[in-house]
């Protein structure tokens, strides 16, 4: 996992740079000319009920909430990011020896879904990647973001899995994923959303299973640890007016 490098020793600095170089050689059009992190122009409360969420990421989470039209989702995105990446945008789960399970998950996701989805230019890389980015997204699913809605026009089909290190693209994947969970599955409360985020099956046949309960409880604990009060958020997330996959992509990336 690369996220630990952000506590740097003098010797560790070179490690960060080297790691970044390895993937920059494979950058694609989707990762070219992306905007900087949004800052003060985003509307919304950047002070209350954020706990220790890094202040320079709050505008991005608020932008995601505004685009998704899901009230309360900014804090949910923050709680998910705290768990999945510790807010390290280049977090990678799958590059360490002990992370074979992550690589197995991405390989299985690719194998089981490649025949019913448009081809990925970097499919083999995605299968071997594991998960990563701010929200810990599994590489093949991340690159297929938007396919159910726009098919072969989905914007990340030609991108390498390392595109997930770009916060704007990770945000795109997360907003679309959250919208699908909220709109297409039964979610009784916010903790249900996180169960669906971990695996949509937990909202269907596996609802009530030990893993379902464990995922929900862990999410509540993550919120407490971060300092976000779930009681101050809407009890249930609702998509008010989904703008569409391509509109979300354009707003986040300018493309």
């Amino acid at each position, binding site marked *: 996992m690369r996220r630990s490098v952000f506590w740097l020793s*003098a010797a*560790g600095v070179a490690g*960060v740079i080297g790691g970044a170089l390895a993937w*920059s050689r494979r950058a694609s059009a989707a990762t070219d000319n992306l905007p900087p992190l949004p800052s003060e122009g985003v509307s919304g409360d950047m002070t209350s009920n954020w706990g220790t969420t*890094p202040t320079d990421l709050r505008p991005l989470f608020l932008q995601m909430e505004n685009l998704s039209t899901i009230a309360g989702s900014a804090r949910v995105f923050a709680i998910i990011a705290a768990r999945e990446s510790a807010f*390290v*945008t*280049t977090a990678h789960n799958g590059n360490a020896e002990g992370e074979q399970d992550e690589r197995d998950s991405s390989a299985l996701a690719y194998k089981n879904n490649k025949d019913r989805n448009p081809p990925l230019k970097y499919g083999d890389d995605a299968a071997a990647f594991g998960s990563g980015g701010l929200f810990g997204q599994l590489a093949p699913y991340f690159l297929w973001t938007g396919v159910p809605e726009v098919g072969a026009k989905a914007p990340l089909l030609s991108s390498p899995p390392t595109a997930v290190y770009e916060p704007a693209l990770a945000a795109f994947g997360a907003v679309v994923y959250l919208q699908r969970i909220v709109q297409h599955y039964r979610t009784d409360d916010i903790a249900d959303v996180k169960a669906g985020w971990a695996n949509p099956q937990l909202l269907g046949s596996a609802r009530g299973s030990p893993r379902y309960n464990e995922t929900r409880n862990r999410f509540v604990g993550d919120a407490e640890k971060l300092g976000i009060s779930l009681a101050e958020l809407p009890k249930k997330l609702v998509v008010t007016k989904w703008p569409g996959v391509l509109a979300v992509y354009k707003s986040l990336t300018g493309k």
Partner: protein
Amino acid sequence: MHLRDYGLERLNDVVQPLNLRRNAAGWYRDVASTLGTSLGLLNIERHGAGLDALGPAYTAALRAQRPSVGEAQASVQSQVLAHCATLESPWHAVLDPTTLASGACFASGDVSERAFYPDTAPGYFSNGHPGPPPRAASTCGWTTPLSLYLGTFPWVYSNRLAGAPGGWISPSLNPAARAMDIANSLLRPERNLRQDAREVAGIAAHFLAETNRFTAELPSSPRAAGDVYFAGGLLRAHRASLAIVSFQGPRGGLSAYAYNYCVLRFAAFFAVRKASVIALATLPSEARKLALTSADEVLRHDAERAALGGSA
């Protein structure tokens, strides 16, 4: 006056030059905004104009969290800070705690505790202040001087620059606001000229030397999203959070925000110093007198030249 006069050429690019007659409002607004960012504050202009926005914005952020000190401690902190505000050179206050009315102690139940952290070991601001010991016995165990680097408030301790700074706020008292006022006062011409710049230069030089092991390793421009780099004298993160970046070295942890904030405070201090000397003729006579009689040779020399109509 040049930064090389104080051995601080590296601060040259950090802030724009200040011209007190032409761009003062915009300069103070920009500096306040950048300082605010390094404190994790957003949209500080909602709280006021320029430096005046910093204190309210910071304390509003602290209030949004749980108050971090009790009333008794906050009361003693406020008293000590009121004393520090009267010092000629409050950038680094070094006090014998036993000479203060409170002894820099507060009552916590039946126990007397220190109202501040005893920051005397070698750190990012100096090689330490182990002595001299207090002249009298301390009821709360002070055995060293009380050392507060108020010019870089809220990072006032040489050994505590990792993570978010301490709260210094209680439900009803706000010593943080008082401390921020002291730090900001050092960016006002008259107060700036009173402060011994040689002391600030020494602290800045020590800080830059101690942190060079981190910044020297970084590239000057990013290659990819997530890169941390060093440009214009400040740490930056390319399409990533700088708030989570920290360094670990022999002097302990150092957050990227703390680094940027301290460097900005140093650079702003010397920008105000230079601008004040240039505009000396327009400042109150007390300020001119201060400059002409200063123990700081650089300031005195420049003031003399300015008085004669030369360039500072």
